[in-house]
């Protein structure tokens, strides 16, 4: 999709969330990336490499946890992995399923140099999982 703008947004959110820690003291950015985001991990790594220095993240690496696409059957409640984007419950065969993981690009954590001041970050509540959750209200 639009990895450059997605990564630019990621980096500015990292720097904002890390304050007062300086960008140069951020060592690792860990993200979780699902297949239904339309965001390609290889292009994300490339974009990160190209944008990090300009953002002041000179010593920073990017760790990407590539997530599986998983869902839960609304009828029989069984949880399963969605393979080849076929959203059908392998247990009861019904196609009324809710995505539980894999449609999000999430900033998980950052690793910072220990000698930087300790700050208390609010544990941001996970915003809605599925894009779909906003619909059919």
């Amino acid at each position: 999709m639009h990895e450059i703008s997605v990564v630019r947004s990621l980096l500015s959110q990292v720097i904002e969330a890390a304050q007062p820690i300086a960008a140069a003291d951020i060592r690792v950015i860990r993200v979780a990336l699902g297949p239904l985001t339309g965001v390609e991990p290889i292009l994300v790594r490339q974009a990160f490499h190209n944008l990090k220095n300009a953002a002041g993240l000179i010593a920073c690496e990017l760790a990407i946890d590539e997530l599986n696409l998983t869902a839960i059957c609304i009828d029989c409640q069984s949880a399963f992995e969605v393979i080849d984007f076929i959203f059908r419950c392998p247990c009861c065969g019904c196609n009324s399923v809710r995505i539980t993981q894999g449609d999000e690009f999430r900033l998980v954590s950052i690793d910072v140099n220990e000698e930087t001041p300790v700050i208390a970050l609010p544990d941001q509540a996970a915003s809605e999982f599925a894009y779909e959750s906003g619909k059919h209200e």
Partner: protein
Amino acid sequence: MSNRHSPTELIEETLGGGSMPPPESTLIQDTISRTVQINRDIAAQRKQAAADLRSQFSRRGTLVINLVSSPGAGKTSLLEATAKHWAGRRRMAVLVGDIATERDAERLAPFTPVRQLTTGGACHLELELVERGLAQLPQADYEFLFIENIGNLVCPASHDLAEHRRVVLVSTTEGDDKPGKYPKMFRTSQAMLVTKTDLLPYVPFDVQAVVEDARRIQGQLDVFQISSLHGEGIDAWCDWLEQQRQQMLRAEVKT
């Protein structure tokens, strides 16, 4: 809990599976690092803005439909046929997106209030453009607002435009194998319109196959067969729109 990463671990972690140039690992000395949990959806702000605007539409009684498809699948023709069908009995408006020209707005202007959104190259509409177009419409109390997205089955799938329903069009001239190739678009849609059905006798397009393919991805998809040219299916489509609006109004009363 503090994590200690050696430079080599970091490099392995970062390069895993990718073709990245080597990181500047010399900068990472043996200082101890500490992990700060953040756990934030990168798109959270954008999603919230769309949800807020959607609530505003619901309160106003405006059902918003985001029409998506490949270029040339018949989005504008569908809107033309819809406006003609209602013939002023429903208050509708259209925001139509294209990379360039006002052609679609000019086509629709005789039948419905319409504003053209030109992206100047961007391959999808974003919420800001929709808000700008909204401010230019003559009224605010429409029963139905249609957003005709840029013809593209990829990027528009990732952009919530504050719509209540996303409707994807597949025309009989573009092949019945589209849903499986663009799963996100079909997964995030609530209805699929098979358009240009008047051409079915002349093209190798299997309606049953496209419906099965789409429902493997989105089992709840409502499906309509439409010929905007001849009017086939327009009644059922307009009935569906009315039902969706009633559903939205009932949900609004409950909240």
